[in-house]
């Protein structure tokens, strides 16, 4: 009788089809930068080559002042590319998406309340072809967040046209008699992709000299 080994080996091979059983693992890795938002503490010890996104990282923790007093500091996501600041802008970043889409992130600061939240929110709405809000609607159209001893009024609007929807994510922060504006605007899909990064960015904003 011939050997039955080959068919049996084939059956054994077939039964090998066990699934991967997930397991909790632990390991040690050299200190690494956060993929999106490198904090000052980790960049200092990471021997990585500077990346093109590092201009954003190098903006981290650089204080910006208003005419009325000390300003704010922040850490920008690594993939936001810093643009040169201008007379109007404290800082400016470009965010690129797919198929050449770009979004703009700007940080501006002016003395006083610059007309109040309603006027500024309506200015943003006008930029994406939305009708202005009435004063009574402002409270439901914005959210309020307290972070790092700052009070943030956060807005999120989608406008533009059905073919080319635009979106604005903005935060207004009053600091020492001045008002700071953080605005992310661009094509709605790209801004949606960056929403978590924007929220995380706002968490890093704090008064110069304040502890993180």
């Amino acid at each position, binding site marked *: 009788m011939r050997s039955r080994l*080959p068919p049996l080996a*084939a059956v054994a091979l077939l039964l*090998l089809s066990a699934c991967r059983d997930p397991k909790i693992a632990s390991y040690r890795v*050299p200190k690494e930068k956060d993929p999106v938002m490198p904090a000052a503490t*980790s960049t200092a010890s990471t021997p*990585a080559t500077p990346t093109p996104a590092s201009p954003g990282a190098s903006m981290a923790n650089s204080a910006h002042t208003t005419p009325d007093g000390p300003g704010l500091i922040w850490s920008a996501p690594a993939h936001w590319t810093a643009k040169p600041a201008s007379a109007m802008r404290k800082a400016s970043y470009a965010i690129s998406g797919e198929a050449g889409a770009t979004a703009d992130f700007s940080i501006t600061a002016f003395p006083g309340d610059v007309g109040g939240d309603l006027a500024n929110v309506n200015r943003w709405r006008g930029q994406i072809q939305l009708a202005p809000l009435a004063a009574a609607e402002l409270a439901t159209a914005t959210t309020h967040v307290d972070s790092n001893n700052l009070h943030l009024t956060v807005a999120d609007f989608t406008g533009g046209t059905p073919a080319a929807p635009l979106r604005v994510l903005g935060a207004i922060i009053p600091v020492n008699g001045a008002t700071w504006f953080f605005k992310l605007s661009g094509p709605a899909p790209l801004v949606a992709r960056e929403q*978590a990064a924007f*929220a995380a960015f706002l968490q890093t904003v704090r008064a110069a000299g304040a502890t993180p």
Partner: protein
Amino acid sequence: MNEVTRQFRDFFVSLKLTIVLLALSIILIFAATVDQVNLGIWAVQQKYFHSLFVLWRVGDIPVPVFPGGYLIGGFLLINLISAQVYRFKLSAKKSGIWLTHVGLIILLIGELLTGLWQEEFALRLDEGQSKNYSESYRFNELAVTETTDAAFDDVVVIPEKILARGEAIQHAKLPFRIVPKLYYPNATIPENDSKAPTPSHATKGIGLQVGVVPLPLTYKQDERNLPAAYVELVGADGLIGTWLVYANPGMPPQRFEYAGRSWKIALRYERNYKPFSLTLLKFSNDRYAGTAIPKNYSSRIRLNTPEGRDDREVLIYMNNPLRYAGLTFYQASFDGPKTTILQVVRNPSWQMPYIACTLMTLGLLIQFGIHLVAFIARRRKIAAVAA
């Protein structure tokens, strides 16, 4: 050989079985191709080909309705091997057929091993960026990292499947328990234009500002499910806080302090670390003149190992992958002008289809060659007789 064994053997050696299995394969491939519209290629592969049975759910009970790829392929393999052993006699005249069948057996075994062993990851690099890990296309993990040490991070990773079970997780390296409270296999941060903010259950971190809502699972080839979860960390003195973790790459790790040590927590794409690192030196993206159609794209990479055994530049472009340490790095995609996406594949059995095809080609050449020689010899004989 007793009667039962003989019947068993005859069943597997039978040519009828081969025909039935081939017919079942055709139906399986047709059904899978049609269903690809609904499920996408990855889910179709899992459901129809990398399974013993195609299952339909009746209520909560999975009911097998058709043999899956592993079962049909397995039976074909057994059928071929049995036929090879019991039916085909190895002789010079049949050596071509014999070799062709050996090639086919190797092809089937190769496909099985590929299904079992192949791993695919993506490596996304910005120009100037170095990485010593790649990330899974489909799987995610909760990473809790102690960042107290100035030189190293100690990472505990919990696969998404374990997180999804919702059971409390205790690990020897963590001074707290992780209790998943809510888990969404796919989620998004909704627009809250003129509406009340999405409720968030988080008491710490980014979840204080944003909430998530569940989405239906996507099976599209160009989309990925992004899970989210609310996780509680519970220390010896009680609740430390509840964090929203979300596998969106835009969501950075969230840092906190506990027991005098620094930590960060993130739900991220599952990582596969390697004993070497790759740095993207330059990404080039050529387009056809006057169009946005990519003509050629390539990545100039620096490969180096920590101990300095390897430190060299390589150019990866379409159809010219880098093969290193059992991995193959293909130029797969890009994101913007300065970001490359490489596909990283580990397939220990990658050579088997090449060997199989070579053997089958050789076998067919020999078999047809033998027939050709015999045919020519016969014609010459007839011609000689006629003359």
